[in-house]
């Protein structure tokens, strides 16, 4: 991919990722957040986070299965950081509008409200990933450690989905769609890994055979 194509695509990703925020701000300014403005902001930022997390999680399996799309990896960090950005807005909504930055209420909520516990866990899984997203951090940590640390995104996604379910009234199934998507993206990983292992084995066998036939001559 040429540098200019990359710049154009990155710009488009920035626009796509900031569009929801622009919509939210516009809706707030024009008094169009509906009946429950606080609830609307909380839901909107939460859903944006989960969707961006799902898109981020989709990149690795896609590029492994379709080598032609390997260049997608160049967008993974950006998407992940935007997921973190919306998660931060979501957290700030809770801090500012639900508990009014009151540490006592906050502590009680985190300890007692299991959906908040799960949400906080998800956020604190994402935080180190955002902090170590720079090239410098990858170099400092070393590729292996960095990869190991970044498997926390799986925990974050699971906690995020659980958080969504736990703040629903029992019996309401709205989070089902995102649960299926995130579940599929997590379950497809071992499958992709085993396909790749088999491919690698096949390649190795062919290579061995080829070298044997060469030496036999």
């Amino acid at each position, binding site marked *: 991919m040429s540098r200019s194509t990359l710049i154009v695509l990155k710009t488009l990703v920035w626009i796509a990722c900031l569009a929801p925020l622009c919509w939210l701000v516009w809706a707030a300014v024009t008094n169009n957040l509906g009946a429950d403005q606080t609830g609307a902001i909380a839901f909107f930022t939460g859903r944006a986070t989960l969707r961006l997390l799902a898109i981020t999680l989709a990149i690795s399996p896609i590029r492994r299965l379709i080598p032609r799309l390997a260049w997608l990896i160049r967008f993974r960090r950006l998407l992940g950081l935007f997921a973190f950005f919306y998660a931060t807005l979501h957290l700030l909504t809770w801090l500012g509008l639900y508990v009014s930055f009151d540490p006592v209420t906050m502590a009680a909520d985190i300890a007692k409200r299991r959906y908040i516990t799960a949400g906080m866990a998800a956020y604190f899984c994402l935080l180190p990933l955002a902090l170590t997203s720079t090239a410098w951090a990858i170099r400092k940590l070393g590729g292996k450690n960095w990869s190991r640390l970044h498997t926390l995104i799986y925990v974050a996604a699971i906690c995020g989905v659980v958080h969504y379910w736990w703040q629903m009234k*029992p019996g309401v199934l709205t989070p089902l769609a995102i649960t299926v998507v995130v579940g599929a993206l997590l379950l497809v990983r071992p499958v992709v890994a085993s396909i790749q292992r088999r491919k690698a084995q096949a390649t190795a066998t062919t290579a061995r055979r080829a070298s044997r036939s060469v030496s036999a001559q």
Partner: protein
Amino acid sequence: MLIGKPPDVPSSEITSQDDYNRYLNRRKFLKGVAAAGAAGLGANRLGRLISPPTAVHADATKLQTVPSPLTTTGEQLTPYEYITHYNNFYEFGVDKGAPAKNAGLLPTRPWTVKVDGKVAKPLTFDIDDLLKLRPLEDRVYRHRCVEAWSMVIPWVGYSLSEFIKQCNPLPSAKYVQFLSYFNWKVDKWASEDISIVWPYSEGLRMDEAMNPLTLLTFGLYGEALPNQDGAPVRIVVPWKYGYKSAKSIVAVRFVEKQPNTTWNDQAPGEYGFYSNVNPNVDTVPWSQKTERRIGLPFYEQTRTTLMFNGYADQVASMYSGMDLRKYY
């Protein structure tokens, strides 16, 4: 209960309609803002998107009402638009806007309410007779949902106790159960994103049902209930979480034992039979200490929740000696 003498001016003209006009003016202003913005962008469709046209009041039935000493004062009414477009009526979809879209299918005429169980004789009331049974009162009540949001709604109706007296319940009747309308052909959304056993069932202890605050409700803002708000007749129990106020009632059953109630069946550990608004008893998943007033801007929405939703003076005595942590 005192009904008071008929006023010279219907109270709907004094309070709710005034508020409603103020609300209309606000809408006009907002429409103006939206239109200006849309004109700037040269997009007419955007204007409609920002401020969608609403057909409220087009064919609403005006109700003849009288004022009530039991009305709640000192609260700013929630706009009609939000009371009618932000509904939990899961038979018509779990989305808050779904009932306004889907409840049109509800056949509100002819409509009867069947009374049976521990009564002298089973009865059937026609909705049009119920409307004439007692003078219809304007009663503003706070409405507190278990989801920690609240509204202030100018209901129209009379005390349920007036209706119960007509039913001649036997001394063995200790509870009243209310059953909501249900028909899979009408309530097509009742299994979409939701798993509940229908029909919707609610109940009250006899003294709660007889408390003058408990309202047999036929309207809001001086007009017949829109379908999405539980037309043509519903219960309103202002000191309990909203789900206790069953909508679109087709049967009233007097029973000896505590009846099954939908949300109690759904999650017994979280939603109790009593379900009194209580900031000191949390329900999973939400804290009940605060609530978000619907219709206010997000930066001034959150307020403290009051014990019994602010109706402690009228209702607390019914629960004296009861451990409200145990009987939540």
